[in-house]
C-alpha cells in the first residue's frame, strides 16, 4: 500500500487556515498549468507565498561561449512573465524576529535534502532560503513547514516582509526591554491583514532593544522600532522610538524619527495606519518610486504624519491592538540548565579564539550567547540537524537567526561553553570570528539572483579564505571591521552600512566585459545603521582582495588613537583613497591576463548576458568611453564637494555628471549633439528614453528618470541628504549608461 501523502499525514498538525491557504495555492498551480489564470496574477500569488524566481529562469544560460536554451520538459509553460515553469526557483521562509526552534531546523534540513541542494541559507533579514526548488514541490514543502509552525505567506511580493529583531532580544545586557513579544505581535497582526494587501512595493519592519548597537538596523527600514522606557507619573512605561521611511536599494534613505516615545499600546494601530496611508497613496505604477521612503519624501514628513493621524482617528477599534500586552511572556525563554562555572581543564584546542569572538555574556548572570558563524550564511542539511540537536541539549532547542547570517544559541552556562564548542566543532560549526572582518555578509549575487551583476558570494568566499589564512597576522585595529558585498546596486548585501562595502558593476574593455565592484566607503552599522557610505571607485573583481589590503593597511598606518574606520576615511578624504586605489583599476588585455575576464568562483568568461542582451549596435565607441569616463570624474568631484559641505555644488555636479553620461550615449546616434542642456535632454529622451533603448531590463526607465527629475526640479538649496541622494542617482545613471553602451557595443 502506498504511504499517505504529506497533506493527509500532517492535517492534524497544522492550523486549518494554513491548510486551506496551501490547498488554494496548489489549486492555483494546477490552474496555471492549464492556462486558466493570468500570468501576472499568478506571479504575484506565488511571490506572496515566498516562491521566488532564480537566475536562468527565463530558460537561457550563458555557458561562457554562447547563450543556450535550457530544454525543460514542460516546454513553454511559464510561472510568470518570462519565467519558465520548470526552472529552479528559490523558496524564502519567514522567521519572525529570527526565533527558530530545533524542531523547525530539523524540518528545514530535511526539506533542503529532499527538495533543494542540501544547503540551508540564512539571509540578511533573518529568513531562511532554499534554492533550486521546483515549483511543484512547494505545496508539500509548505505543508511540512506549516506542521512546525512556519508560514511562508508574504515572504516575498508587495507585502510586509519578515519582521526582524535583534537576536539578543530578551538576553541582552544593554536592552531597554525584550522586544520579542512586540515583534511577534506586529508580525502576526499584519500577516494577511486587509490593510497590508495593496502596496506598490514591499514593506520592511525591524525591532531593536536599544539605540546604540547595530542589531536591529532601524534606520534602514520602512519602520524601525527601538525600545525605550520612560517614567510617567512615577511609573516606568514601555514604548518605542519609531523611525519611518528608511530603506537601502539603489538610492538609500535614512529613516526619520516619527515619534520619540510611542506607547506600546499604540504600536499596532500606528503600524496599521501607516500601512493604510502607504496602500492609499503609495506609488503603484512606477515600481522604482514605490517604496514608503519615496512617499514620505514626496509628501513631506509633517503631511505624512498628519495623514497617519487622520487614519488613526478613522480606523475601527481592534481588540488585537492591546490583547497581546496581556501575554508578553509568550516569547519568554527559561534556561534548562543551572548556571555552573567553567571547570574543564585543559580547554579544547581553538576554544579561546572562539570564545573571544563568538561568546557574549547575557544580561542574566551566569548565562552566555554563543554565535554559530556560518560562512556565506550557509549550512548543510546535516549541520542544520546537528545544531538543532546541540540546541536541544544545551538550551531546550531555541535559536535566533541574525542579520549577519549566523545562528545564535542563548542561555548557555559558562561551564557548558567548552563542551558546546567541542560539539559544534564536531560538525564544523565552531568557526571563530563572528562579527569580525572574516564574517562577511553577502547577498546571493550571480550565483542564483536574476539581478546579480557580479559574484558577491564568490568574492566573499575568496576574501574569507585569504583573511583566514592570515588570521594570526591581522592587526587588532582591523579585526572588528565589517565587509558587506552585494552583487548589484540593490543592496541586499547591505553594502551601504559596511566599513568596506562592495556592489557589483561591469565595464566594457575592448570587445570583452569585465566584472567590477564599486568600493563603498563611509557607512556604519553602529547606532542602528546611522550612516550610509558612497561609492568611491570601480575596481575589477579580480583585485578586490588587494583593495581590502590597501584600505586596511591605510587604516593601520593613518588612524589616530581611538579613531573609527569611518572617521579615519573621512579625515583622510576620498580623493586620497581614490588615488591610492586608482592603480588597481587598470585592466590588462585579455591576452595578457584572462583571469580579469571571469568572476570569482566561476571560470566562464564573464558575461552580463544572463541578465539580458540588448539589440542595438553603436559605432562611436571611443567617444562614448571617453564621455562616460568624464561623467565618472564629475560624479567624483561632486562627492568631494559634499565632503566639504558644498551641497549646492555637489548636487549641481551630480546633475552635470548625468548630463555628460547622457550626452555620451546620445553621441552614438547623433555625434553633433551640443553642450546645450535642453538639447542633450531632448535628444536623449527622443533617441534613448522614448525608444526604451536606455531602459534597464528589470528597473525599466528608473535611471533615465533620475536625469529628467533632476532637470525639472532644478536646484534651490539642497540639504546634505538631498545632495547625497542626487550623487547616488548620478552614479546609478552612469552605471546604466555603461550598461546601455555594453548592450549596444559590438561583441
Amino acid at each position, binding site marked *: 500500500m502506498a504511504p499517505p501523502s504529506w497533506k493527509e499525514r500532517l492535517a492534524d498538525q497544522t492550523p486549518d487556515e494554513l491548510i486551506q491557504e496551501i490547498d488554494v495555492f496548489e489549486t492555483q498551480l494546477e490552474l496555471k498549468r492549464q492556462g486558466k489564470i493570468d500570468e501576472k496574477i499568478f506571479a504575484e500569488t506565488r511571490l506572496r507565498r515566498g516562491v521566488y524566481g532564480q537566475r536562468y529562469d527565463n530558460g537561457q544560460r550563458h555557458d561562457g561561449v554562447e547563450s543556450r536554451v*535550457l530544454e525543460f520538459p514542460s516546454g513553454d509553460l511559464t510561472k510568470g512573465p518570462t519565467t519558465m515553469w520548470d526552472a529552479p526557483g528559490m523558496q524564502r521562509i519567514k522567521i519572525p524576529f529570527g526565533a527558530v526552534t530545533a524542531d523547525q531546523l530539523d524540518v528545514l534540513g530535511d526539506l533542503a535534502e529532499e527538495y533543494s541542494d542540501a544547503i540551508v541559507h540564512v539571509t540578511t533579514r533573518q529568513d531562511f532560503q532554499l534554492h*533550486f526548488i521546483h515549483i511543484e514541490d512547494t505545496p508539500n514543502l509548505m505543508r511540512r513547514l506549516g506542521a512546525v509552525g512556519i508560514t511562508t505567506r508574504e515572504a516575498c511580493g508587495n507585502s510586509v516582509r519578515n519582521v526582524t529583531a535583534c537576536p539578543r532580544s530578551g538576553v541582552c545586557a544593554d536592552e531597554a526591554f525584550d522586544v520579542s513579544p512586540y515583534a511577534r505581535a506586529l508580525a502576526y497582526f499584519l500577516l494577511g491583514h486587509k490593510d497590508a494587501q495593496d502596496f506598490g512595493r514591499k514593506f520592511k519592519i525591524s525591532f531593536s532593544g536599544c539605540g546604540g548597537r547595530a542589531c536591529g538596523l532601524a534606520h534602514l527600514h520602512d519602520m524601525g522600532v527601538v525600545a525605550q522606557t520612560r517614567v510617567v507619573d512615577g511609573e516606568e512605561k514601555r514604548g518605542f522610538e519609531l523611525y519611518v521611511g528608511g530603506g537601502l536599494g539603489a538610492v538609500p534613505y535614512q529613516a526619520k524619527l516619527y515619534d520619540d516615545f510611542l506607547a506600546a499600546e499604540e504600536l499596532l494601530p500606528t503600524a496599521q495606519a501607516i500601512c493604510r496611508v502607504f496602500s492609499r497613496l503609495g506609488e503603484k505604477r512606477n515600481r522604482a518610486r514605490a517604496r514608503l521612503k519615496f512617499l514620505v519624501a514626496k509628501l513631506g514628513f509633517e503631511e505624512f504624519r498628519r495623514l497617519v493621524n487622520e487614519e488613526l482617528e478613522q480606523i475601527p477599534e481592534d481588540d488585537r491592538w492591546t490583547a497581546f500586552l496581556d501575554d508578553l511572556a509568550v516569547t519568554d525563554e527559561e534556561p534548562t540548565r543551572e548556571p555552573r562555572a567553567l571547570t574543564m581543564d585543559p580547554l579544547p584546542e581553538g576554544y579561546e579564539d572562539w570564545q573571544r569572538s563568538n561568546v557574549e555574556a547575557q544580561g542574566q548572570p551566569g548565562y552566555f550567547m554563543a554565535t554559530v558563524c556560518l560562512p556565506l550564511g*550557509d549550512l548543510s542539511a546535516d549541520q542544520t540537524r546537528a545544531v538543532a540537536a546541540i540546541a536541544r541539549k544545551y538550551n531546550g532547542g531555541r535559536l535566533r537567526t541574525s542579520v549577519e547570517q549566523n545562528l545564535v544559541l542563548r542561555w548557555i552556562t559558562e561551564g557548558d561553553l567548552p563542551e558546546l564548542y567541542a560539539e559544534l566543532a564536531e560538525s564544523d560549526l565552531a568557526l571563530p570570528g563572528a562579527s569580525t572582518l572574516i564574517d562577511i555578509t553577502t547577498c546571493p549575487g550571480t550565483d542564483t539572483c536574476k539581478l546579480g551583476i557580479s559574484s558577491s558570494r564568490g568574492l566573499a568566499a575568496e576574501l574569507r579564505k585569504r583573511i583566514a589564512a592570515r588570521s594570526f597576522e591581522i592587526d587588532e585595529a582591523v579585526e572588528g571591521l565589517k565587509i558587506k558585498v552585494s552583487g548589484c546596486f540593490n543592496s541586499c548585501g547591505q553594502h551601504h552600512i559596511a566599513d568596506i562595502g562592495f556592489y557589483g558593476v561591469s565595464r566594457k574593455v575592448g570587445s570583452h566585459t569585465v566584472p567590477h565592484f564599486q568600493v563603498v566607503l563611509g557607512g556604519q552599522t553602529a547606532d542602528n545603521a546611522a550612516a550610509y557610505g558612497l561609492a568611491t571607485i570601480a575596481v575589477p573583481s579580480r583585485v578586490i582582495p588587494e583593495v581590502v589590503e590597501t584600505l586596511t593597511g591605510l587604516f593601520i598606518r593613518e588612524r589616530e588613537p581611538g579613531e573609527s574606520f569611518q572617521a579615519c576615511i573621512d579625515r583622510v578624504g576620498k580623493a586620497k583613497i581614490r588615488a591610492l586605489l586608482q592603480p588597481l583599476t587598470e585592466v590588462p588585455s585579455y591576452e595578457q591576463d584572462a583571469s580579469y575576464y571571469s568572476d570569482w568562483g566561476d571560470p566562464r568568461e564573464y558575461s552580463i548576458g544572463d541578465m539580458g542582451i540588448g539589440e542595438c549596435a553603436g559605432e562611436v565607441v571611443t567617444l562614448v568611453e571617453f564621455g562616460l569616463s568624464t561623467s565618472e570624474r564629475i560624479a567624483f568631484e561632486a562627492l568631494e564637494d559634499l565632503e566639504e559641505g558644498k551641497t549646492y555644488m555637489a548636487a549641481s555636479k551630480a546633475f552635470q555628471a548625468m548630463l555628460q553620461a547622457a550626452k555620451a550615449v546620445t553621441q552614438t546616434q547623433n555625434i553633433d549633439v551640443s553642450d546645450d542642456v535642453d538639447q542633450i535632454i531632448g535628444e536623449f529622451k527622443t533617441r534613448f528614453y522614448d525608444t526604451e533603448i536606455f531602459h534597464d531590463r528589470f528597473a525599466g526607465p528608473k535611471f533615465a528618470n533620475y536625469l529628467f527629475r533632476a532637470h525639472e526640479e532644478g536646484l534651490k538649496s539642497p540639504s546634505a541628504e538631498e545632495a547625497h541622494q542626487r550623487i547616488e542617482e548620478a552614479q546609478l545613471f552612469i552605471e546604466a549608461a555603461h550598461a546601455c553602451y555594453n548592450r549596444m557595443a559590438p561583441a
Partner: protein
Amino acid sequence: MTMIDTAKIELKVFAAGSNGVANGGELDIEGLIPVFHRWVRDQCLEETMIDVADYTHVPNGPGVLLVCHDANYSLDQGGGETGLLYSRRRETHPSLGNIESLDDRLASVFRRSLEACVLLEEEPSLAGTVHFPGDRFLLWVNDRLIGRDGEEELESASKRLLARLAPEAEISLGSATSEGGRLGHHLRLAGSPGIRSLLAEIGEPSGESE
C-alpha cells in the same frame, strides 16, 4: 503495490581511500568547478544541465554541485568520506527510458551515477586523483514519506540488482535508516569487478519515455 513509489533516490559511490584521493595525489574539490562548467558547455551528460553551485565553504557538504533538472551531481564530502553523490529528483529526460518498477529505477540510478564516475576518473584536469573502486555505495530513498515499511522492499531490490551486476562478488547490506530519517542502505560488493564492468552489466534503458 510498491511502497517505494518515488523518483527521489540518491546514491553515493564511494571513492578510494579515506579522503577519496587515489595514487597519492591531492584532491582539489574546487578543481571540479571548471570541470562541471565544461560538462554543461559540452553537454557531457544526458541531462538538462542547469548550473554549477560552489559550496566548498561548507565543510563536509556537497562541495561543488552540478544542478540538472532531473538530478544533482556532486563530489560529496558528507560523513567525512568522499564520493560521487547522485541525487535524483524527478524522471523526465527521454534518455531515462521506461521506469516501471523499483528494479528499473535502481538500475537507472546506478547507470547515471556510474556514468558520472567514469567521466570523473577520465577527467584530464583531475589527473587521476579520483578513483571509484565500485565496492561501496550508500543508497537512500530521499523521501521521508517512505518510512521503515519500505526497508524490506529496498533491500530485496538492491540485492537483485547487485547480484545481476556482479554475480561473482560477495554482497552485504546494512541499514542506514535513522529514526524519523530517510530509508537507506549501505551496500558492499567484496570482489567488485569495477565500475566499468558494473556499468556494462546494467545495459541500456528499456524503451524511450514520453
